[in-house]
């Protein structure tokens, strides 16, 4: 008999619907205003600190919803934002600078849903408020810096090899070496081929000259490194800012997106992102007593520093190399499989490092990390800009051997520590300058407005369509409405599973999908009416209606999908969000409008004698 689905098909559709409901469900629970405590250093928050947080909050008499300790972070949920803000201030005072206290909107998804991997959609900045920056790394400057480094390196190498040159100069992307006499050209070429493989050689007509150009591959590396380095630096800064779920991503070849949800004070955010850092390698002063120095008797040639655990350490006043002489730092494993950090210096740094290490084998050497922050504070109604310099010893290692250009720091406790050290070294190295090329800030009140308005228009648009369909197509219209509702549920479920970011244009995409997904059912129902007019029986009219409308639905939706995909490929930011909801909406609506509505129609009319259809 026609108009019946086999059991497996019914079951499959129902299972998909059930999945849709479960995965869409988290979005109904909303968010809890909460405070997140994490460590600013590599150590995780320990149980002890978690207890401290809990007791501090309880002592202050805050009414909390729950407190969780997970993945080395503490998350405290509150009933309202007032409590949240006050508690955050309290915790900031109590915990000090080693911990980041961030305001967060934690999804209030129940545990059983989380266990199934169901999470709510992530709200975009236009809905939750926050700051979005698009930064552009100045690639030309990065390349120029590299050219300068190479020029210096070549000069030093020539001096080292006792090749007499008249000049080594930078000119229009070339490093031009002019020799005193052509006799030494052979030696020069040998040296360049041996030590400067990353430079392309050209020999101009003048016999005493060689022109060098940084190879294409090397330039690509320099650019990649410039972006990576800036991202590392930004990540460090953002951690300091206390943002719960920051996004720092590369976009295109030379841009970095930074999104800071919940941050309202853009001026401060910009200040912190713009902090500069450098570092210094110094010898450790092993001759004098540290404890005496702590008491105030610092030897003349030394300075007192502290490491990250607050232990004092005496260092030589003279600097060996500074951050701008570091070309690269990366973590990895040494020959023995132990975690290590490999560091590359430029020519000037290498020469100095070589000299110092040769004379000091066996002595420890320390790395000092220095940050310059500027902070604007209101003092008596006046804005005061305070420049602050913080210094900290981040690594101490014994010099085992004389080294210069490339060396390794070993004896690190864990790969984690190696990674962190490499990150800090890179952050302190000379970074290519960045510009903010786009900024979008959305205040919290506007975010809430946008959510309210978006939801309102979805609801109203949806209800209008439901009423119209029910009036126009009666029973079939009701079926279409059920299909439409499931379309929205499945669409939301898929967006949640993909952890897509919901933006205002995204909501508009959902609304539009609601309007357009009716189309498939309209096509089918109009066809059924037509078949009835042509004198077909109700049963075969249903069958033919669905059958004949399908190719139309398929063709028309596929072409629409085509444009949605183009929108996604070429669009940016919120336009992409719109394209994602539209694309998925097209696919889900095809499913619910054809298969879903058919199932219900089959239940109602299938397998029995029907005189008249309610259409």
């Amino acid at each position: 008999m026609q108009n019946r689905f086999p059991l497996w098909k019914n079951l499959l559709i129902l299972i998909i619907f059930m999945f849709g409901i479960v995965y869409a469900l988290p979005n109904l629970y909303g968010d809890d205003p909460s405070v997140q405590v994490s460590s600013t250093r590599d150590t995780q928050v320990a149980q002890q600190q978690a207890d401290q947080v809990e007791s501090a909050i309880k002592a202050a008499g805050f009414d909390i919803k729950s407190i969780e300790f997970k993945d080395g972070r503490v998350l405290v949920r509150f009933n309202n934002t007032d409590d949240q803000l006050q508690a955050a201030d309290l915790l900031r005072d109590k915990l000090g600078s080693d911990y980041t206290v961030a305001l967060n909107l934690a999804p209030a998804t129940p545990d059983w849903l989380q266990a199934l991997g169901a999470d709510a959609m992530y709200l975009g900045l236009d809905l939750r408020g926050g700051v979005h920056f698009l930064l552009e790394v100045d690639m030309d400057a990065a390349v120029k810096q590299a050219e300068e480094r190479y020029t210096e390196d070549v000069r030093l190498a020539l001096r080292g090899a006792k090749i007499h040159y008249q000049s080594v100069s930078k000119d229009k992307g070339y490093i031009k070496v002019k020799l005193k006499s052509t006799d030494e050209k052979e030696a020069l070429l040998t040296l360049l081929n041996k030590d400067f493989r990353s430079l392309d050689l050209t020999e101009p007509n003048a016999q005493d000259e060689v022109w060098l150009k940084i190879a294409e591959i090397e330039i690509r590396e320099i650019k990649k490194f410039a972006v990576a380095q800036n991202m590392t630096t930004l990540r460090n800064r953002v951690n300091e800012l206390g943002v719960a779920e920051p996004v720092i991503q590369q976009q295109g070849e030379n841009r970095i997106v930074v999104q800071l949800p919940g941050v309202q004070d853009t001026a401060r955010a910009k200040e912190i992102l713009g902090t500069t850092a450098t570092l210094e390698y110094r010898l450790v002063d092993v001759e004098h007593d540290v404890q005496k120095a702590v008491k105030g008797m610092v030897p003349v040639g030394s300075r007192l520093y502290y490491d990250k655990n607050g232990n004092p350490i005496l260092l030589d006043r003279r600097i060996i190399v500074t951050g701008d002489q570091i070309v690269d730092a990366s973590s990895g494993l040494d020959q023995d499989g132990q975690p290590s950090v490999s560091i590359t210096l430029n020519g000037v740094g290498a020469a100095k490092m070589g000299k110092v290490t040769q004379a000091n084998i066996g002595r420890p050497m320390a790395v000092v990390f220095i940050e310059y922050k500027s902070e604007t504070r209101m003092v008596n109604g006046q804005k005061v800009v305070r420049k602050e310099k913080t210094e900290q010893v981040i690594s101490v290692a014994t010099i085992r051997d004389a080294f210069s250009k490339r060396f390794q720091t070993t004896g690190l406790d864990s790969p984690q520590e190696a990674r962190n050290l490499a990150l800090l070294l890179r952050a302190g190295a000379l970074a290519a300058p960045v510009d903010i090329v786009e900024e979008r800030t959305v205040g919290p009140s506007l975010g809430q407005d946008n959510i309210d308005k978006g939801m309102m228009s979805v609801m109203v648009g949806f209800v209008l369509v439901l009423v119209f369909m029910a009036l126009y197509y009666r029973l079939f219209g009701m079926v279409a409405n059920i299909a439409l509702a499931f379309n929205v549920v499945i669409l939301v479920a898929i967006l949640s599973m993909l952890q897509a970011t919901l933006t205002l244009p995204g909501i508009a995409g959902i609304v539009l999908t609601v309007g357009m997904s009716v189309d498939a059912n309209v096509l089918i129902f109009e066809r059924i009416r037509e078949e009835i007019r042509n004198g077909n029986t109700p049963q075969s009219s249903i069958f033919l209606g669905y059958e004949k409308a399908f190719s139309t639905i398929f063709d028309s939706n596929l072409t629409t999908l085509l444009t949605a995909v183009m929108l996604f490929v070429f669009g940016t930011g919120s336009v992409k969000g719109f394209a994602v909801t539209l694309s998925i909406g097209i696919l889900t609506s095809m499913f619910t409008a054809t298969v879903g509505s058919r199932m219900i129609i089959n239940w109602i009319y299938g397998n029995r004698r029907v005189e008249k259809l309610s259409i």
Partner: protein
Amino acid sequence: MLKQNIDFLGRRKIALIVSCILLVVSIASLAVRGLQLGIDFTGGTLVEVGYPQSADLAAVRGALNEAGFGDATVQHYGTTKDVLIRLKPQEGISNEELSVKVLEAVNKNTAEPAQLRRVEFVGPQVGDELAQDGGLALLFSMIGILIYVAWRFEYKFALGSVAALVHDVIITLGFFSVLGLEFDSTVLAAILALIGYSLNDTIVVFDRIRENFRKFRKGTPEEIMNASLNETLSRTILTSFTVVLVLLALVFLGGAIIHNFSIALLFGVFVGTYSSVFVASALALTWGVNAEDLMIPVKEGADIDHLP
């Protein structure tokens, strides 16, 4: 249900004149007035502030003038409590400080400080790329459609549908130009969505034309196409109506940020519906679509009832 029989294609000359007038007006307006491009395209800074009461625009302007932002445009946004301040890309002052300075200037003389609702800064280089990417998206969508429709249907249909899309895009752009509505990245998205919608409509009509060409061996192409348009008319009206319903909800309730987006789509639905009948189909007919173009070469008699 009443069976309509409207001679759409007989009136294609009138439609041609109407479309030509609309296109000429649009192109002329685009050439003379241009589009009121948003900062997404031009670059610049936009600051939206909210006041507890209705805001006095003159006072805000005065305060900005005093602070040296003479070229700022100030207007209400959505409600009278919200004020939108736009600044052209500034020379000499760093973008980082601009929004802070603007807020400071605005709040200097008011008793109740305005609340910062939104800041957007777009560098000029980003704006250029957006326009370029938008243009590319349009171009590639059109090419994709051309290929797909030519493959599934016939190349005259493909040309007809793409011509209809170009028609829709130009007239919608013209609409924005004539009314001086702001054209930002959301409107660009709306225009691309509109292409999808208009095409959807066109394909539905084409699909029926193809089916009828295969079914009826008699009748001129014009008669068959007219019959097809009439058969799909109720669907065309119904679907457009439901889309208009939700768009009205977006226009009136969606808030100021997506207002122009919704307006673009709303206008586009009307143009898109019109164009699938009077531009896409009419052009395909003018270029001489006939039954042979749409016959399935091998499977003769595929239209025979395939009921069990």
